[in-house]
């Protein structure tokens, strides 16, 4: 990951999208300092948390929670759901009487659409969708304000995915949560986010409002990515411009712009110099020398409600 910058306003959802190996998960982990960034800052409410000592991090750890992709790996198989929730409640609430902690656990489990009976069960008794609900309940147990959702629905079937996405939207409104939504699924990102950042090989290629980035992308990579989405509508069948080649390894990055070897507009300048992410229009940042000159064809995939 290299030189990635973005901001998320309180109560907003920032979508981070990219193919495998683009570094989107690494961004999420750096924010929580699960991976220490080599350089740079993570500013939360005006404080740079990368400089904080272990002890000083604690309130921020409570405030920021992460929900992982694999619902089967993120719960302790030998702990009941009640145990998992009360552990998280205690971690944030200090010394709570047992009855009060239990009452909160009950409220939380109901909040995510399960019921009290489920508290006494073990993780193996739940389906993938239910486990993701429990993960959400546990994240809320610490009174989190900021959730990092790392591919929360990619293990789930469409109908269950819809249930979990709806739940996430509901609790966001109810608790004024801020989300960083990481996914490779462009349709899910479009549905959830206000602003979207597109990553490729550890670099942020383009950042813009959801509508702008899906209808008038300025980076050739974003454009190709959007064109590649298979839309569930045979009437929209189209001849697509297919991106040739594959993502090169991250160990030996291409010189200059990391995308140049797959970009049909690449020039010598792209091979030699590294483009920086800068505003090409208000609120539309692009890391491409020619962002304003390419006149990429607007896409019609994205429909206004």
């Amino acid at each position, binding site marked *: 990951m290299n030189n990635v910058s973005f901001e998320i306003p309180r109560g907003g959802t920032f979508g981070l999208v990219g*193919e*495998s190996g683009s570094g989107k998960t690494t961004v999420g982990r750096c924010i929580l300092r699960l991976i220490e960034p080599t350089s740079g800052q993570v500013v939360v409410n005006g404080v740079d948390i990368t400089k904080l000592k272990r002890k000083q991090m604690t309130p921020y750890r409570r405030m920021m929670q992460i929900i992982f992709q694999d619902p089967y790996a993120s719960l302790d198989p030998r702990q009941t759901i009640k145990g998992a929730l009360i552990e998280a409640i205690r971690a944030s609430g200090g010394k709570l009487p047992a009855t009060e902690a239990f009452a909160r656990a009950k409220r939380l489990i109901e909040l995510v659409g399960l019921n009290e009976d489920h508290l006494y069960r073990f993780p193996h008794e739940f*389906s993938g*969708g239910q486990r993701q609900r429990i993960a959400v309940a546990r994240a809320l147990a610490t009174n989190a304000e900021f959730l990092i959702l790392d591919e929360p629905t990619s293990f789930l*079937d*469409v*109908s*269950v*995915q*819809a*249930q979990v*996405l*709806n739940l996430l*939207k*509901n609790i966001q409104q109810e608790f004024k949560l801020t989300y960083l939504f990481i996914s*490779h699924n*462009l*349709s*899910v990102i*479009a*549905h*959830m986010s206000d602003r979207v950042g597109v990553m490729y090989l550890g670099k942020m290629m383009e950042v813009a409002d*959801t*509508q702008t980035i*899906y209808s008038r992308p300025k980076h050739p990579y974003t454009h*190709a*990515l959007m*064109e*590649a*989405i*298979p*839309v*569930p*509508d*045979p*009437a*929209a*069948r*189209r*001849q*697509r411009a*297919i*991106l*040739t080649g*594959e*993502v090169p390894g991250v160990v030996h990055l291409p010189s200059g712009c990391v995308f140049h070897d797959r970009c049909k507009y690449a020039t010598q300048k792209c091979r030699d110099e590294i483009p920086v992410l800068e505003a090409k229009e208000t609120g539309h940042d692009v890391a491409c020398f020619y962002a304003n000159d390419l006149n990429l064809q607007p896409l019609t*995939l*994205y*429909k*206004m*409600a």
Partner: protein
Amino acid sequence: MSQVGLFKQEVQIPPQGEPVLELKDLYVSFHTYAGEVKALNGINLTLYKGEVVGLVGESGCGKSVTAAAVVGLLPENGGVKSGQILFEGVDLLRKSRKEVRNLRSTKIAMVFQDPMTFLNPVLTIGEQLREVFNTDKRRLAQAALEYDLAQLREQEAKATDDAQREEIRSRIIHLESRRGNPPTPRRGHKRKVLDSLAIDALNKMRVPDAPRIIKEFPHELSGGMRQRVMISMAIARDPVLLIADEITTALDVTIQAQILELLKILRKEFNSTILIITHDLGVVADLCDRVAVMYAGDVVEVADAESLYAKPLHPYTQGLLRAVPMLTAAPTMLESIAGSVPDLIYPPPACRFNPRCPYVFDLCRQKKPELIEVEKGHLTACHLYTEGGKRQSHS
């Protein structure tokens, strides 16, 4: 717009000629410690020559079991309880293991989701491809003859004196006369011919730098490249039926687009019948002429792609299509299907969708709905459209 028009023409539904594969009242069960899992509950499906059919559904609905039953690769604890699998009019269930195996290597081919499980990790791509071509002796001999002819023609063009040219000429004439009855290739010679066949096959799959790829091992290739290798092996012997089980699921979206494009080219060049198994409604919309939707071991709806997406009939299909996040600026909620997929050891009685169906009525709990034609070419298994049903057509 004009581009769209052009493209539409290309994917026109082929005339429904002779059926290639017919599944009739197929029941498949697995025996587990917990009980009998009734995985396929009497499904009916017909694939016609040259068409691309999508089989969609959520995990556990039986789409992969259907494919496994067709190619005779059901696991030990599973088996066909009753029904027929007619391939080119012949019931595969009445054939011996050996005959089915033989068919699998010639007329029916299958590609799976994870190529790493099906490629041998200790053999090079070339070795594995050569093995496939080596199974077809006649075609190999034919290829060897053509290979020799091409080389002789090259020599002829380069030849300097007349005597030499004359000699090459006579050898060419001799070889051409053997075209219908090609000689068995010499041992050392075979390897070169097999290599050229392997390279050809990879080139057809638009694999860049094929002569280098055949010397590499599977782990040295990317996911997209491995899948291309798998497809080229599958179509090496011009199968009548190609079954593709979730072949783009593990791939990134730009690579997925490349593979989908490849499949479109394939269907044009080879005219084989393709069965695409996927959970991705986008992939189906992009590629298929007709679609069959499965739920909990039943085929609940069959239609051509346009009708299915424009006017889904079965309540499950309707719910499924509404649950997909579309690329729309919608702050709205997605509609989801309440409940979850049933346990197939104790499936719900009659219509297996009845506990989750918003339109459920008494008949749904009493009698299993048959797959019936509601509109031309549009079939569904739902009591809403039968005589006892509330409506003939649901908008």
